[in-house]
């Protein structure tokens, strides 16, 4: 029986770097509070691992509360758009409706299709759930708030983990042994894999400017008010932000890109056969994803937790970050209740014929911009903002003229 709490058990492990925040937490907070007899023998490395696990546990406990709010917000927003009041019965102004729905889902029958593949059917929600939550590990929420996964490859890690969600979707669709589920999951997989390309290329423009993949470095480089936010830094990142945002709507399968769960065609897509709490896991993951992609967008393009004015904390820090993120989430809801669903061919055309070429152009442009303006100063940002302004006005003029034209005849 090895002595677990002695120094001999973990003699010389080196957890990546010594100045890890969890190690600091163990050294500065835990050890001074221990009794004398134990403090000397406390294994710092094991403690580091435990602190990391505990912090991850906090995330897993807190993040499901987000959908609780977001689902209600979605229903209220939808209601306002349709001139209704939305849920009003449970709690004041219906604020406890989601909680009631959650309790209802817990008590529902957990139905497993007898003809399906039971193992994969049970496993699929957990894969999606775990991947959506692992993304939160690398998001910088505010100044001084530790990131559990503060990697130097932050944004690349996020892309890698979120690309695994497709596997869960395919698993769910296939194991249900239902045509609707399979069609939904195939649509979803095709869509997510396609839109990952413009998404990645848009992220690359930011990475080129910052010269780092780390989330903290990306936020740190936007220190200095709204005009140093990466969206305004070059005209190309301005375009990249919109491509990023639209592609991430497609990534999280929301209207106008919700073909994988188009009710009128394939019931509910890949989660048709799921019921009760397993369905709720998909639902929670969807809203967590929505929040996550908005948070990533804010971090990459909209300054992260940096404030609007240089030197002031206005719209900065943790509250500012959450406000900006919720702004993007609201934009997603707005689009959902405004736009009709795209057809499959339109969806793929948009991605492959427009977004990907524009993204390549963006990368080229960002590279040239970086060669011309070696350092970001008043000049480069001023020129950038001027180009964005002129571009927006001419786009408005062109769009106005083309919208006034007759629509093209539909393909028969």
């Amino acid at each position, binding site marked *: 029986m090895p002595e677990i709490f002695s120094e001999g058990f*973990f*003699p*010389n*492990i080196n957890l990546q770097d010594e100045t890890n925040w969890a190690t600091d937490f163990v050294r500065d907070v835990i050890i001074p509070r221990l009794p004398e007899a134990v403090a000397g023998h406390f294994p710092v490395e*094991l403690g580091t691992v435990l602190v990391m696990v505990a912090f991850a546990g906090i995330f897993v406990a807190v993040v499901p509360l987000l959908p609780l709010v977001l689902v209600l917000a979605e229903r209220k927003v939808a209601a306002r758009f349709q001139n209704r009041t939305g849920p009003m019965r449970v709690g004041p102004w219906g604020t406890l409706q989601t909680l009631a729905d959650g309790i209802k889902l817990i008590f529902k029958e957990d139905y497993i299709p007898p003809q399906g593949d039971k193992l*994969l059917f049970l496993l699929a929600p957990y894969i999606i759930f775990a991947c959506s939550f692992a993304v939160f590990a690398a998001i910088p929420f505010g100044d001084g708030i530790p990131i559990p996964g503060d990697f*130097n490859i932050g944004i*690349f890690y996020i892309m890698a983990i979120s690309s695994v969600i497709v*596997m869960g979707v395919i698993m769910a669709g296939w194991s249900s042994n239902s045509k609707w589920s399979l069609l939904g999951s195939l649509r979803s997989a095709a869509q997510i894999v396609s839109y990952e390309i413009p998404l990645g290329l848009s992220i690359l423009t930011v990475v080129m400017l910052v010269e780092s993949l780390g989330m903290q470095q990306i936020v740190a480089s936007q220190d200095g008010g709204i005009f140093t936010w990466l969206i305004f830094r070059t005209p190309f990142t301005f375009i990249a932000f919109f491509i990023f945002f639209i592609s991430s709507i497609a990534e999280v399968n929301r209207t106008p890109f919700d073909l994988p769960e188009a009710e009128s065609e394939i019931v509910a897509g890949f989660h048709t056969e799921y019921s009760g709490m397993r369905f709720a896991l998909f639902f929670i993951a969807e809203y967590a994803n929505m929040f996550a992609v908005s948070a990533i967008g804010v971090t990459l393009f909209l300054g992260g937790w940096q404030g609007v004015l240089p030197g002031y904390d206005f719209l900065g820090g943790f509250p500012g970050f959450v406000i900006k993120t919720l702004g993007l989430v609201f934009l997603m809801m707005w689009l959902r209740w405004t736009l009709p669903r795209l057809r499959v061919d339109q969806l793929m055309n948009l991605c492959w014929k427009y977004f990907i070429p524009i993204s390549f152009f963006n990368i080229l442009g960002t590279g040239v911009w970086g060669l011309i303006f070696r350092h970001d100063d008043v000049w480069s940002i001023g020129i950038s903002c001027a180009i964005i302004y002129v571009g927006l006005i001419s786009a408005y003029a062109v769009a106005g003229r083309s919208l006034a034209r007759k629509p093209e005849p539909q393909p028969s």
Partner: protein
Amino acid sequence: MEFTLKTFIFYGFALITIASALAVVTVRNIVHAAFALMVTLFGVAGLYVFLQADFLAATQVIVYVGGILVLILFGVMMTSGRLEMRIHIERGQLLLGGGISLALLMLLLTVIANTPKWENLTDDGTAFEPTTKRIGELILNEKFLLPFEVASVLLLVALIGAALISRKEVRD
């Protein structure tokens, strides 16, 4: 052998990798095999992280799990109906395959024998160094530019070929 946290992590990932790799080749259901392959790839990614090759680990996940495995599953699902496969192996194939596998095994064993044991590796005091920058420099500046470009041309050719094969002539 000293029993440290390192040992735990290494053998944990090694166990995951090997067990799921065994499942890939022994399970009869193709879809199950594909999902077992996902676990294998994750295990290997974990070993990469253990070796402080974080960029490689993320690339492994994004390319193999998020890309290639999804394509494999697409192929399997599009041709569904024959999931349980009993593959008949001729004696000649058995000999040939066995021979090649044995040769590969010998090669791997030679490499393993000539590599210093990982338990004996000591911390040489250098801090963890991000690999991303070094990889980028090697690919674009130094000796691996040509293979990199050749690989990209190969992929382009494959892409055009696939488009040509799958595309139907449309007349209107």
